[in-house]
């Protein structure tokens, strides 16, 4: 190395600095650039070694040196050791009380050419290479601050300022380098801080409870937080790039566009939607979206909040609100809710009172237990209907409260459904309607009571419907008897159906008046005889019945039979009329005519009759004459003259006078002539009575009379009006026609003159009875003018007219009736003769107490008693065996009570000689008017029939036996095989035993015993088979024992088992447990079963082996045991089933066709039924139904 050339050096140095800077920029590690620079400085300054370091400060602000490069360390062993010891934290030096520390402290160049003596030197640490001289160069950054330093040591000849100045550019370059290192470091630190901050923010974002979605303008997800991922079940990576529509199930493109437009204005929007999870499930969300700009592009930040809970809470709130509403609308009403899923019942507090159950636990089952047993089922049905129909329904039912009180509850309920329309809840109200129900009951009771009163009151009560042509709506018992018309006949008809038109018209006019005016009307003495016969006198009050609005709707009539009271009442009325006359005296005009002065005094009444008063009429005779009708005047004057001339005590005249108003009034004038002392007429005194009304009535009456006469004349019965002596006063046309007289001829006649049967004495008696008011009816004969007679029925009724007594006689020609009566009598005689003489039917008539009143000839023959002996005796005592007396009397009293005869029955009766006779007795109850009914017995002797029946039973038993024998015959081959088996075994065992006995028994004794036992067993087996066979073929009288059907079936199968086995037929038993016994004949039933089994076997013969199964089944049915034999064979053709049980009908080639016929007769004999059924799967089933035996043991 040479000394630095002052002239050339700067150029070299600059080039070196440029190279160093280039290296710094190029190299990733600045270390080498520093080492390069250090080498350059050490070389240029001809120093022995040196270092370059950065000045840094600790967190506490204490400066220290960090060495980037040292020279000589790698080559000098002692240096390396020194560094290892003094810079354990890398190349950092914190000790600054030394020469390089002076540079850092002072920011100045430090030159020390004798460091050992330099006060700034803190002394070298042990191991430091010897320091002869030292140059410390501060390095400043861009802003003049100390960023580092370089240290050089041991230059030969020491250091000076000039050298330091020369090295300055290099220090400047190093300053730039260190500054840039520091800047990089700061940038890195701030980046790290930023990154930490970002991570913090992400953690925060991830943990917010809402899902965050950062979306771009196309709603594409740019970023999401953890919560959003969790809520949707996607990962963050899956979510990024998704569009809103991919996970939002509700939002539409239109909405998205609308929202986008809104967001563009910078507004924040919120809406509810539904998010869809990755697994497809959905949940409601509330979304708030705000716009934000990232990198100059529009984005949106969406916050999605899961509002499932809120929605649920809302729904709950809504429900509770509805509950509340219901409760409010129906005050004093309990609200309940039944959760169908959990079966829990919610009760509002009122319910506990209403249902009377304080301790209800909310279980539907507990509620069910509260219900009245009778209402349990109907209520269940109603509830089910409500659930099915889904409408609001109400129902009423009873509950029994915890106080045992029965309450009536009215419920009204509605069904709540979930989104799928399933019923989840029933919500309803409950109301206690017990009081209402009780009131209803009371009302019903009182209505019933009223109905009873109306029905049984002795007054006729009936109701007519004005809207329906006054047809009868109600007709009580008294009405029935008074009018003689039954309710069934009358209700729905009106008066026109039963009364003559005139009368009915009259009734209806009254009815109409009543309805129109709304007040009652009385009809007194209303004669009524709609059915003929005696007239009844009635007093009827008719009144309107008003509806709730006060409108008359129905007409009520109450009607009393006053016939009995009629007479006295008539008298009373007469007296009353007289009284009325007197009372009307006030209305009588008086006139007083002085014949001497020809002056007439008219009373005020007289004037007022003609409409005048006071002076309007003068007291002059002219005033009277001028007012009399011109037509009547001559007669009136004649009458007056006559009265005066003849001195009549009583003057009477009728004439018309003109009223002031111009009308004509009829006036009755009565008066007396008054004589003077000389006996000459001096004057007349009299009265005027206005008789206009009466006159009009008379005219009306006359018209009515002619109408009446025509009616009477056209009546089909002859009418005779007689006076109280019986003399004919008037007759009708029919009377004339029937008797052949003129009306005039008949009037005045006495009954004896045309009645051939009536004597004067009889007439007298009739008259006496009539006098008492009685209606008299009798049959008689009338004689015509030509002398011929005909039978008649006469009815006479008295009545009064004008104080006189009359009789009205109704005479009916009864020729026809008499003829019919005669025919009836003849027929009766014929029948009697018939009953008397019929010899096959014993007929007896007797009273309910048993007393015999009729005993025909056949009865004599049947029972050995003559009619004389029997009549008057007690039938039961006479004919019935002692032990049957009580039963027979019970039957009779029952028949007497019900009026219905007992059914025909077979009876064993006792003859006179004590022998028995079996008869079929039919009884007849014959009702008699006014008496207890009479009994008739018709007995037919069936002793012979009985005997024949017994004979038939015997023959049938023989037939059964024959049929069984035939079955046995058919089974012979099988039976021989069956016996062959044990016989074969016996043979083999015997042979084996013989062998042992031959060869010596030693040691074989036990074997021998075994063989002999086997022989005995097999012998027993033979016996069993033969016993069974013998039983089956035995001729035994039919007997009834209690039979176990299961055992019978097994035994029967045993009988034919070999046959079945030979034909590869299997038997499958399906027997129910514990079958009750049936009463029957074991052998006969076995015969039925064997027959059915054999038939089934035959049907299976053409079937493949695997189908050859017979199922034998037995089970209990109500009151019966059923057993079935089922095969899967050829089955039954449709036309076969009809004749299946007919005798000699067969489908088999070799069959007799008697088996099933016998089966049927046996089963019938057991009161059972047999039927054949075609199985759907092929084959046939024969089903036998036998009644269960009620008694145990023998019948």
């Amino acid at each position, binding site marked *: 190395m040479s000394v630095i050339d002052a002239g050339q050096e700067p150029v070299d140095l600059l080039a070196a600095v440029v190279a160093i800077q280039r290296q710094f920029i190029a190299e990733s590690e600045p270390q080498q650039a520093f080492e390069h620079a250090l080498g350059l400085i050490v070389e240029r300054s001809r120093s022995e070694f040196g270092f370059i370091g950065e000045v840094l400060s600790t967190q506490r602000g204490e400066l220290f040196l960090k060495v980037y490069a040292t020279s000589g360390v790698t080559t000098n062993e002692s240096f390396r050791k020194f560094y290892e010891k003094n810079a354990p934290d890398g190349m950092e030096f914190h000790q600054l009380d030394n020469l390089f520390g002076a540079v850092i402290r002072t920011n100045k160049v430090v030159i020390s050419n004798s460091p050992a003596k330099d006060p700034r030197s803190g002394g070298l640490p042990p191991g430091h290479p010897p320091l002869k001289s030292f140059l410390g160069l501060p390095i400043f950054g861009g802003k003049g601050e100390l960023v580092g330093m370089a240290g050089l040591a041991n230059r030969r000849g020491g250091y000076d300022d000039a050298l330091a100045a020369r090295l300055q550019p290099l220090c400047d370059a190093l300053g730039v380098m260190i500054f840039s290192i520091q800047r990089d470091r700061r940038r890195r630190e701030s980046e790290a801080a930023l990154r930490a901050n970002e991570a913090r923010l992400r953690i925060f974002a991830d943990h917010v409870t809402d899902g965050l979605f950062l979306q771009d303008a196309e709603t594409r997800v740019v970023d999401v937080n953890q919560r959003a991922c969790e809520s949707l079940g996607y990962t963050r990576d899956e979510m990024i790039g998704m569009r809103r529509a991919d996970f939002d199930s509700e939002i539409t493109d239109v909405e998205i566009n609308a929202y986008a437009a809104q967001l563009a204005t910078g507004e924040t929007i919120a809406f509810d939607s539904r998010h869809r999870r990755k697994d497809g499930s959905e949940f409601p969300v509330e979304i708030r979206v705000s716009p934000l700009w990232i990198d100059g592009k529009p984005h949106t930040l969406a916050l999605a909040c899961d509002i499932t809970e809120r929605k649920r809470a809302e729904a709950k709130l809504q429900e509770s609100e509805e509950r509340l509403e219901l409760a409010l609308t129906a005050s004093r009403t309990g609200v309940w809710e039944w959760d169908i899923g959990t079966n829990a019942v919610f009760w509002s507090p009122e319910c506990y009172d209403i249902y009377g159950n304080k301790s209800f636990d909310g279980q539907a089952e507990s509620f069910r237990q509260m219900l009245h047993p009778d209402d349990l089922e109907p209520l269940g049905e109603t509830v089910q209907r409500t659930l099915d129909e889904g409408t609001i329904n109400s129902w009423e039912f009873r509950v029994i409260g915890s106080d045992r009180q029965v309450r009536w509850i009215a419920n009204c309920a509605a069904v709540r459904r979930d989104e799928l329309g399933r019923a989840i809840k029933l919500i309803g109200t409950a109301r206690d309607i017990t009081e209402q129900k009780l009131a209803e009951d009371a009302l019903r009771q009182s209505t019933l009571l009223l109905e009873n009163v109306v029905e049984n009151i002795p007054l006729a009560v009936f109701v007519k419907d004005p809207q329906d042509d006054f047809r009868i709506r109600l007709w009580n018992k008294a009405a029935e008897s008074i009018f003689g018309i039954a309710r069934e006949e009358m209700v729905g008809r009106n008066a026109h159906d039963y009364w003559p038109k005139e009368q009915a018209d009259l009734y209806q006019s009254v009815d109409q008046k009543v309805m129109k005016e709304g007040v009652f009307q009385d009809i007194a003495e209303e004669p009524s005889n709609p059915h003929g016969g005696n007239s009844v006198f009635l007093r009827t009050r008719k009144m309107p019945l008003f509806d709730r609005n006060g409108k008359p709707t129905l007409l009520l009539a109450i009607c009393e039979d006053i016939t009995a009271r009629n007479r006295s009442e008539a008298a009373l009325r007469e007296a009353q009329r007289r009284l009325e006359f007197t009372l009307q005296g006030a209305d009588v005009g008086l006139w007083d005519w002085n014949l001497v002065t020809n002056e007439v005094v008219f009373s005020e009444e007289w004037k007022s009759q003609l409409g005048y008063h006071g002076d309007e009429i003068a007291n002059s005779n002219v005033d009277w004459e001028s007012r009399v009708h011109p037509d009547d005047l001559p007669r009136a004057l004649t009458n007056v003259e006559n009265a005066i001339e003849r001195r009549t005590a009583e003057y009477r005249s009728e004439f018309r006078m003109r009223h002031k108003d111009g009308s004509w009034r009829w006036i009755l004038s009565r008066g007396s002539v008054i004589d003077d002392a000389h006996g000459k007429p001096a004057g007349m005194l009299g009265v005027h009575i206005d008789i206009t009304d009466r006159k009009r009535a008379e005219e009306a009456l006359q018209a009515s009379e002619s109408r009446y006469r025509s009616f009477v004349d056209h009546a089909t019965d002859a009418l005779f009006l007689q006076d109280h002596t019986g003399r004919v006063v008037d007759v009708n046309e029919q009377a004339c026609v029937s008797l052949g007289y003129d009306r005039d001829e008949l009037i005045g006649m006495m009954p004896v003159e045309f009645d051939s049967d009536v004597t004067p004495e009889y007439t007298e008696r009739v008259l006496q009875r009539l006098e008492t008011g009685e209606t008299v009816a009798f049959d008689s004969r009338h004689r015509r003018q030509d002398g011929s007679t005909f039978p008649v029925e006469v009815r006479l009724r008295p009545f009064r007219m004008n104080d006189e007594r009359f009789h009205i006689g109704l005479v009916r020609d009864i020729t026809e009736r008499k003829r019919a009566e005669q025919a009836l009598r003849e027929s009766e005689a014929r029948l009697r003769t018939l009953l008397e003489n019929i010899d096959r039917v014993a007929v007896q008539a007797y009273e309910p107490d048993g007393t015999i009143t009729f005993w025909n000839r056949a009865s004599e023959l049947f029972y050995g008693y003559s009619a004389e002996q029997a009549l008057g005796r007690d039938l039961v005592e006479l004919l019935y065996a002692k032990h049957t007396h009580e039963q027979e009397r019970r039957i009779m009293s029952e028949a007497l009570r019900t009026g219905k005869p007992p059914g025909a029955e077979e009876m064993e009766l006792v003859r006179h000689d004590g022998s028995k006779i079996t008869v079929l007795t039919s009884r007849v109850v014959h009702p008699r008017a006014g008496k207890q009914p009479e009994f008739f017995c018709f007995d037919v002797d069936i002793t012979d029939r009985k005997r024949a029946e017994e004979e038939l039973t015997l023959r049938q038993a023989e037939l059964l036996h024959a049929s069984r024998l035939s079955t046995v015959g058919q089974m012979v081959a099988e039976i*021989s095989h069956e016996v062959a*088996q044990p016989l*074969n*075994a016996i*043979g*083999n065992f015997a042979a084996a035993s013989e062998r042992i006995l031959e060869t010596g028994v030693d040691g074989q004794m036990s074997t021998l015993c075994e063989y002999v036992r*086997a022989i005995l067993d*097999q012998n027993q087996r033979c016996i069993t088979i033969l016993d069974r066979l013998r039983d089956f073929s035995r001729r035994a009288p039919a007997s009834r024992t209690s039979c176990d059907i299961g055992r019978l079936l097994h035994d029967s199968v045993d009988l034919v088992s070999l046959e079945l086995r*030979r034909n590869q037929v299997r038997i499958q038993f399906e027997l129910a447990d514990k079958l009750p016994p049936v009463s029957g004949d074991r052998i006969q039933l076995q015969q039925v079963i064997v027959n059915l089994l054999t038939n089934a076997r035959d049907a299976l013969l053409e079937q493949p082996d695997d189908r050859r199964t017979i199922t034998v089944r037995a089970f209990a049915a109500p009151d019966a045991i059923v057993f079935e034999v089922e095969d899967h064979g050829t089955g039954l053709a449709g036309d076969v089933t009809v004749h299946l049980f007919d005798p000699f009908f067969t489908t088999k080639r070799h069959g007799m066709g008697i088996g099933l016929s016998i089966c049927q007769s046996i089963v019938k004999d057991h009161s059972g039924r047999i039927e054949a059924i075609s199985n759907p799967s092929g084959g046939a089933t024969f089903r036998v139904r036998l009644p269960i035996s009620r008694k145990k043991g023998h019948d």
Partner: protein
Amino acid sequence: MTENTTVYVVDDDEAVLLSVQAMLSQHGYLCRCYLSAEEFLRDAPRDSPGCVITDLQMPEVSGVELQQRLLASQSPLSVVVVTGVADVPTTVALMERGAVTLLEKPYNHDDLVRAVERGLAASRERWLKRRDEQSVLDRLASLTEDERRVMECMLTGQPNKAVAHRLELSMRTVDRRRQAVLEKMGVRTAPELALLLGATRLSQLPSGISANVNQAENPDI
């Protein structure tokens, strides 16, 4: 009586089964009893002589079917049929298929013992013959393809020279193979060989050979 001659009794009636066993065991037979034909067929030996006493009417598998199945499996067992009732067609069919006899129940036990004795003898004979046949077949199987060709020529009676010419072999080779055939078949001469193969049931010979044997024995056919 060899120990391989067992009597198999098949009857669905247990009493009968036990009685037959009692009787036959007293006569010194080894008896095996079966309540059904299936049970027996599962147990039936394939390759030892014996006699079966079977009932005719049994549920499931009948005596007739039992006999058919035994025949189908080429069993050497003899069949004695016992029955309660037998019709003529069934009897004829049974006898035609080689039943020893048919006894009607109840039978005389001596008849049964005699029938069993006959059945056992016939079965033993059949079995022995079958065993010989099998031995020949085994020996034939031990021949190589070349030897077999030489043997076929031998059976047609061709001399060695003709054989050598036909098979394009040297005389030496033919002679060597001829000796090998005779040695393996256990005979000394070609006629002996022909006799041995002729005694074997033709149906059991490999097809190629049977044709040749036929030709050898009946050259005019």
